[in-house]
């Protein structure tokens, strides 16, 4: 029996006035897998998530979550999924415990289930000590974790996460990744949006790259890396003095040699392993000592640049230097 995909986007279109925010987006997420929607700010990722979680009505096309149509059966969709939006969606004046219970009551969970799940989630997200603290006093990382915990109250089979680690410090980010991996291991299907290539690379089984509301590429991280941007041959020489002669030697065999003096590295486009063995024998026969010779695959960042002509991340600091976690309560 073929299993129903956990999530399907079917020609989703969303227009706001004249502006097309989402332009004919389709993809399928098999049960138990992770899809990363990768794209820069304003690419339309959030709008896609809002349509898939019944918060926004598609202009045309539709989506299915756990086999339920978001337009025709919104309530069934809401019963099958959890959502952690970009903005904090927990109540600041309630405690962590009260937030979980309020949502549990709205789902109509029995009080036994609710207590059990609230305790499990609090423990899981290292919030047991902060359970009776008012959320206003939580750190950014704790708030994010509580937000995620609240999305899991009904233990939904499908979870949508809109930029789950934005604004988190690196440690909180790693912790969250860990949690997400375990959820997937337990059978949850994840759709997460991110502007961080690293995040998509680390977590997602499949990546859909979105730019200006359109799908511009899709595949595994490996496929994306292979399909665009060439691999590069990287030679690191042992002595900086050898760099000019090494460059000359390399240029006689391959074109487009780039010299990085500070790293004592020479880089040139390569087509495959044969290039590497050829160059290895060239250096073998010379007097130049080398530290390292390798083939470097393009990063997702390179892929994104090749696909869109611009970088995915607005600036280098975006990838997790925010530190709003200083008041972290530790167990």
């Amino acid at each position: 029996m073929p299993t129903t995909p956990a999530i399907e986007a079917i020609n989703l279109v969303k227009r706001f006035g004249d502006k097309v925010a989402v332009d004919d987006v389709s993809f399928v997420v098999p049960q138990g897998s992770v899809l990363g929607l990768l794209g820069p700010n304003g690419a339309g990722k959030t709008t896609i998530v809002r349509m898939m979680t019944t918060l926004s009505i598609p202009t045309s096309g539709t989506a299915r979550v756990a086999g339920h149509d978001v337009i025709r059966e919104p309530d069934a969709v809401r019963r099958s999924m959890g959502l952690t939006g970009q903005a904090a969606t927990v109540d600041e004046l309630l405690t962590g415990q009260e937030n979980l219970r309020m949502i549990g009551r709205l789902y109509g969970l029995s009080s036994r289930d609710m207590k059990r799940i609230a305790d499990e989630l609090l423990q899981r997200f290292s919030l047991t000590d902060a359970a009776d603290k008012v959320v206003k006093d939580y750190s950014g990382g704790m708030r994010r974790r509580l937000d995620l915990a609240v999305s899991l109250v009904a233990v939904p089979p499908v979870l949508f996460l809109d930029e789950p680690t934005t604004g988190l410090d690196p440690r909180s980010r790693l912790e969250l990744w860990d949690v997400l991996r375990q959820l997937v291991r337990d059978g949850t299907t994840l759709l997460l949006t991110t502007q961080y290539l690293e995040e998509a690379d680390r977590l997602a089984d499949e990546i859909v790259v979105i730019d200006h509301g359109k799908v511009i590429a899709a595949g595994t991280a490996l496929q994306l890396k292979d399909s665009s941007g060439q691999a590069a041959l990287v030679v690191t020489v042992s002595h900086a003095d050898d760099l000019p002669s090494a460059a000359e030697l390399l240029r006689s065999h391959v074109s487009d040699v780039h010299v990085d003096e500070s790293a004592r590295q020479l880089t040139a486009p390569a087509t495959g392993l044969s290039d590497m063995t050829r160059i290895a024998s060239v250096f073998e026969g010379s007097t130049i000592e080398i530290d390292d010779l390798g083939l470097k695959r393009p990063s997702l960042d390179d892929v994104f640049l090749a696909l869109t002509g611009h970088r995915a991340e607005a600036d280098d600091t975006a990838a997790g230097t925010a530190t709003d976690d200083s008041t972290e309560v530790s167990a």
Partner: protein
Amino acid sequence: MTTTAIPDFTISARPQIHPTSLWTQSLVLVRRNLTHIKRQPEMLMDVTIQPVMFVLLFAFVFGGSIQTANGNYREWLLPGIMGQTMTFASFVVAIGLNNDLQKGIIDRFRSLPISPSAVLVGRSLAGLLHSSIGVVVMALTGLIVGWRIRNGVGDAVLAFALLLLFGFAMIWLGIWVGSAMRSVEAVNGVMFTTMFPITFLANTFAPTESMGSWLRTIAEWNPISALVQSLRELWGNVPGPAPGASWPLRHAVPVSIGWSILLAAIFAPLAMRAYRRRTTD
């Protein structure tokens, strides 16, 4: 700062989701709003300290120079301040709803399998409760400064029911303003510049008899005046309508009911439309 090792996570069993009724959902949300009050008791200042201050200010500062038909200004004043307190239920609801709309928690509620109206019903009931606390505080303050209920229990209860009915209409106004405005500051600005003068341009604090003829007509046709006149009559704080009173004040109780229904009928569709616009895209 210690790094806590993350224990392996398995939710022992998926819980059963039971469909809940609109009533249950609304009560959960009322409870949420009551917890807010518990955490920030200063939220109640608008229905406690503020009206008590008004009672004291008007009763003791202006009271001496205001002549009322019953000859006891403090007793006459109390129903006026209760009417004002209930009118401000719109304020309470507008601020609360606007706050929620900006924080994204409405998105959380909308992503749950609950009725879309639950948020509004919950907010409204909480607003009504909030203002009712104010009415109780007012009644107690009133009893201290000399206000009395002089008629039967039936009339007294009817008066409180009229207050709640008017509050119900004001809640729709609150939902409308709260959904339409982009910030709490905007809600504050709009409500202060409209509702405040409206509650004064009535028989709340001073008898309309002493106003100029056209001003008196406007004040007596103010829905708040019919409400306040009803309260005064039902509690026996005035002998009856003042001589020369306009038609609404001569039939205060039915007119007050009519005004509440009419205002609800006007504001409810506006409120629903504004809320829907704000929450759907």
